[in-house]
């Protein structure tokens, strides 16, 4: 009865590699939920964070909203949404997005606030328009921190997306929930380790994005 035995048994069973309950299917479902939730959260958090950070206004309101959002229990929200809306993708997306918006919003705002003001002053004095200042002067300098915010949001989504299985959807949570129900601990451990592996892969992906997207001038001086 060793966890490592569970893991090796789970992965060496060829039945786990095919069909609608196979690892490839569950992984791609999980990845789908994660990307969708992250995209929604970024679509909300990034513009709001960038604009409030650029103008330096609304920081207090932001942290209030973010704290409130963090206080919401994700699982409770899922149950509530399912009761209100019924089964489907939407009641799963709402709690995941709610979970991911605060780290993106707050880090983006803070990252923009922490940009050295003198290049911004120089840019303005050269006659750069405000949008250009935001996108071409502040954003490149704030990018490492902003990517950090996106990364922690992504990792939280990866590990929390397992809740989709509670409302009859797929993803890696399926193994955990079904395993618990069937007392099939091999499955539970397998599902958990896949989730952990995906979180690690997320870290690697963000490391690569940072490497490519952040200017060497910023990476080294920061």
């Amino acid at each position: 009865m060793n966890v490592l035995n569970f893991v090796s048994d789970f992965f060496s069973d060829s039945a786990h590699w095919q069909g609608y309950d196979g690892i490839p299917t569950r992984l791609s479902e999980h990845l789908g939920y994660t990307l969708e939730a992250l995209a929604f959260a970024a679509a909300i958090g990034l513009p709001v964070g960038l604009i409030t950070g650029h103008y330096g206004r609304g920081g207090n309101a932001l942290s209030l909203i973010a704290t409130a959002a963090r206080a919401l229990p994700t699982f409770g929200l899922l149950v509530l949404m399912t009761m209100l809306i019924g089964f489907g993708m939407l009641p799963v997306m709402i709690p995941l997005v709610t979970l991911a918006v605060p780290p993106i919003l707050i880090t983006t705002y803070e990252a923009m606030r922490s940009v050295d003001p003198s290049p911004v002053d120089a840019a303005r004095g050269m006659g750069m328009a405000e949008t250009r200042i935001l996108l071409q002067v502040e954003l490149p300098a704030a990018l490492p921190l902003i990517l950090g915010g996106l990364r922690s949001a992504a990792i939280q989504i990866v590990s929390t997306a397992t809740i989709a299985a509670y409302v009859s959807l797929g993803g890696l949570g399926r193994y955990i929930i079904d395993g618990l129900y069937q007392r099939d601990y091999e499955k539970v451990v397998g599902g958990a380790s896949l989730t952990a592996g995906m979180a690690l892969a997320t870290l690697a992906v963000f490391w690569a994005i940072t490497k490519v997207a952040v200017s060497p001038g910023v990476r080294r001086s920061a």
Partner: protein
Amino acid sequence: MAVDRLSLEIPDRSITVLVGPSGCGKTTTLRMINRMVEPSEGTILIDGVDSRRQPVNILRRSMGYVIQNAGLFQHRTIIDNIATVPRLLGWSKDKSRARARELMERVGLDASLAKRYPYQLSGGQQQRVGVARALAADPPVLLMDEPFSAVDPVVRKGLQDELLRIQEELGKTIVFVTHDIDEAVKIGTMVAVLRTGGRLAQFAPPAELLSSPADAFVEDFLGADRGIRRLSFFSSAGLDLLTAPIVAVDATAQQIAARADAGAPYLLVTDVDGKPLGWSEPDRLTAGRIDRGRLLSHGRPFVAGQESLRAALDCAVLSPTGWAVAVDGEGRAAGVVSQQAIGDAIRGAHEDSVSPPKALR
């Protein structure tokens, strides 16, 4: 109120310096010119036209802007930093970069720095990049806010000299803010001394500022040695240089004897090319056996005619013999002059200095 009822006419194609104590409104005044600060009252005319008549970003692109810590974009290479305004104006990438390369050379930056990032440059180099970036689109006006105050005195002097050289070549209308009166006197064609509240205490060429400060505030701001500093504006050309008390290191006994009572208590020994080696009392010199190591130091000589009376006086004061050594452009001894003679020249210069000439460096 940061700046109250300031009225100033900035001459074209020259350097106007705004100087004054911290918080007196220099930056505010400068930033009103490119509308980074909008005046609550009054107008700013550029070539007779109200600056508010054109869109603010068009106005700003026609004025170079240099700030204290250069404010370079850390994510862009040096060459792309410099190419910023040309790119804003819609120039092609190649044309902008070619222009940027040209400017790197103009401000004395090695071409090998083009692909570096700002963090890889020293403070002085970054400041040069800041100046190059401001000049990139060849704006007629250059606004500079304490551009050299964050670098050490040696680098600062180099940057000041460079700015004067560039200005000689380009003839921009420069407004330069500093709190350093020495810097103001050195680079300004006109100097505006401001007091708190942005009130104008005096607006005059630097030599006039030093010779006749308008009031106690300006006098105090100029500091205790303004008399000495004013000497920078008088040429050493008028000094009577003595050539008699100079002997070459290979001089004969007769030559030494002939020059022993040439009017100076010491003789200046030069090498065979005429470059000064040091001072000696005449009776300590033996023909053919002059020991260079036993000569008294001649200190730093001044370039006759080119440097100011201040440099000449400085040489004389530092010289162990009390005599200053004048050299020509090649460093050969052109003559010697006593403190006494320099003092006479200073008195003479003061007498006929109704409008002293432009600063000599």
